[in-house]
């Protein structure tokens, strides 16, 4: 038995852990986010407690009637939630209707605070008078901070009580509403999920706590008025940028391979764009195409125009596209060049000489030997470039402000940032991913290498 060497596994372990945490997990989360509605429906409880039996689910947006309310001790994690209705309860001491000294809990609905410490802590209050003739004029004092806890005493209106302690309770509502199948359900829910209407007797389910699979976000994405323009522009850019880049990159690669004098300087200049961000490139080309920018200055200097022409406006959309095209050509051709050059360097000189010797002209060599041998490199470059082209973002923002001409990455950003809709943003992200994968598969099939065949 040969003992297995575990060293390499230890060495790659940190990478695996890292990628699992910060790549695989978010990726899966992203996929889920786009098809999973976290707040599809609200679970009703049989009593005003989260641990009680479920009494059915009502979908988000259901119109409901409020039947009853009750306070429940507020847990810390939901203390900042929106729509939260709370009431305060006070642990108070005083004298009850029978003259006994008592200590018990009373709701803020029943106790009017009369005296507060400097920091706002209540010190003393009086019991409110009850309105309405039929109601019991006495106020209940409870054993604990809940209206359903046992009553330990009763006090008269205007009794002075000293506040010992304050507790915040979340209001729970007992609601009634119809689910999708027309069935009427009744149950208790916390107030933070409910939007209460002005009449205090009805409302709607505003948020929910039960997730469900949904295509709603993809529908929203497709129906978004920017979706189709974004798809169109992205595909258009891909279609025009990539071929131009490959031609330019091949020319650059051949120039580098020609080993001219100052080759090192040419290589440096050719590779500068590789380190420039898309935002900077966007600004670079903005400085050229803006109304008082380089292009107009040069044209006017040459006497070709008499006044500055607008390029980056809604009326000159084609100019924006041309500017984006040039900017992307400027920025991302270097990486293709580098890949093509390393592909060319990997072809042995003797193989090219052999082709020449066995009668192949330059074009025959290019077609029968160089290009087939470059296939793997071209494949990588194509896939890489397509993925980058599908993601084009800051260049577009810099040149069009992101409104006149829009692309998929920009819409993802907009959905997330402007509309605060992570789900639709994720749907866009998944769409971009699908587009990249489709083109990658397409290239792998179209530019199949012989290793795969054999």
């Amino acid at each position, binding site marked *: 038995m040969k003992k297995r060497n575990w*060293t*390499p*596994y*230890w*060495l*790659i372990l*940190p*990478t695996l852990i*890292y990628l699992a945490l*910060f790549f695989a*997990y*978010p*990726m899966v*989360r*992203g996929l889920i*986010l786009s098809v999973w509605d976290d707040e599809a429906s609200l679970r009703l409880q049989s009593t005003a407690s989260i641990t009680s039996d479920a009494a059915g689910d009502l979908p988000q947006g259901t119109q409901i009637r409020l039947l009853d309310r009750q306070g429940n001790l507020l847990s810390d994690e939901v203390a900042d939630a929106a729509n939260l209705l709370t009431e305060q309860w006070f642990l108070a001491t005083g004298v009850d209707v029978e003259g006994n000294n008592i200590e018990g809990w009373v709701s803020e609905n029943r106790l009017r605070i009369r005296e507060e410490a400097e920091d706002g802590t209540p010190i003393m209050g009086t019991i409110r008078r009850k309105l309405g003739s039929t109601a019991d004029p006495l106020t209940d004092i409870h054993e604990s901070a809940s209206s359903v806890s046992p009553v330990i005493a009763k006090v008269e209106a205007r009794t002075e009580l000293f506040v010992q302690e304050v507790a915040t309770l979340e209001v729970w509502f007992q609601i009634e509403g119809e689910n999708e199948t027309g069935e009427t359900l009744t149950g208790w829910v916390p107030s933070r999920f409910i939007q209460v209407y002005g009449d205090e007797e009805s409302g709607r389910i505003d948020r929910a706590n039960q997730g469900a699979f949904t295509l709603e976000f993809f529908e929203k994405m497709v129906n978004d008025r920017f979706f189709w323009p974004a798809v169109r522009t992205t595909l258009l850019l891909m279609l025009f940028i990539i071929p131009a880049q490959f031609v330019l990159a091949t*020319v650059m690669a051949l120039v580098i391979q*020609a080993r*001219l004098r100052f080759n090192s300087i*040419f290589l*440096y*200049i*050719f*590779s*500068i*764009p590789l*380190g420039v*961000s898309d*935002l*900077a490139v966007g*600004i*670079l080309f903005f*400085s*050229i195409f803006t*109304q*008082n920018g380089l292009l107009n*200055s*040069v044209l006017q*200097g040459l006497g070709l125009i008499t006044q*500055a022409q607008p390029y980056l406006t809604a009326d000159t959309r084609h100019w924006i596209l041309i500017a984006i095209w040039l900017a992307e050509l400027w920025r991302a051709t270097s990486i293709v060049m*580098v*890949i093509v*050059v*390393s*592909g060319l*360097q990997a072809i042995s000189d003797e193989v090219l000489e052999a082709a020449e010797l066995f009668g192949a002209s330059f074009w025959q060599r290019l077609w029968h030997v160089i290009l087939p041998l470059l296939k*793997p*490199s071209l494949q990588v*470059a194509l896939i*890489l470039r397509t*993925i980058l082209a*599908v*993601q084009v*973002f800051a260049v577009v*923002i*810099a040149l069009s402000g992101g409104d006149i001409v829009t692309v998929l990455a920009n819409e993802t950003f907009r959905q*997330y940032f402007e509309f605060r809709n992570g789900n639709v943003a*994720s749907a866009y992200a998944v769409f971009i*991913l699908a587009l*990249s994968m489709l083109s990658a598969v397409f290239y792998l099939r179209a530019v199949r290498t012989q290793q795969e065949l054999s």
Partner: protein
Amino acid sequence: MSKLTSETIALHKRMQARQKLNRTFAYVTAILIALWILIPIFFIFSMAFTTQETVRSYPKNFLPFIPFSTETMQFFLNSAGIVPGVINSLIVAILTLVISTLIAAPAGYAISRYIFPGRNFFRLSILAVRAFPIVVLSIPLAVLFIRVGMFDSIYSLALMHTALALPTTILVIGSVFASVPYELEEAAQVFGCTPFQAFRHVVLPLVLPGIAASAVFTFVLSWNEVFAASILTVQNRTLPAQVLFALSQSSEAYQFAGGFFMLIPALIFMWFIRKYLFNMWGQVSK
């Protein structure tokens, strides 16, 4: 001895003329491409170092730097959020390069030195990770970071950038290690080194320049990254994110100076790592 026929001489001359022409053509092409890359940079450079008045003027002077002034650049650097943005960008970039190099170096060593079951799968997965769009990763990570209370932190941005940089770094470092023959390590061990000493005294000095180049590349990648930075930070924006958000309300002076400022690292670092580029991407495309 036989004499050269006139026909041979003519042929020779034609060949030489053609070679010369090809050469000239190559130079002209090289210079044209260089100009295509340099002119925009030069223009924005001259705009970044002139007065704001000149930036607003039209038509602009063809002669650069007239008048030369640091006014525009100063205006940009004094704008709200720029200095903190630069500091944030630097912290994120340095964190990214440190974390990714620390994690990638052992993995790169493993794939270049060991043949182990699962090695190809590992390599392929790394390549696949590289091929995933940043956009796809940013949104769920943002949601995740919000959930665990790490949102709007430059540290979480550094974690995200590391995930982006890791695959390339691993492959590049792997290729750097592969270029140092294992025999050297063995020789060092034969001459009395422990495996670690052999690594420390023989391999490390040889791979350091390559690893430095890959680290620089990681730095530039992080410095340039806009999308994730804009999604993941709100108050603690990095420079590109800050510029991106200020873009629509800012003057051209701000934009031009910002644009130039952001491409300074590219101008500096590409000079140092240009020779390693083919190493990096050549290996990656294999």
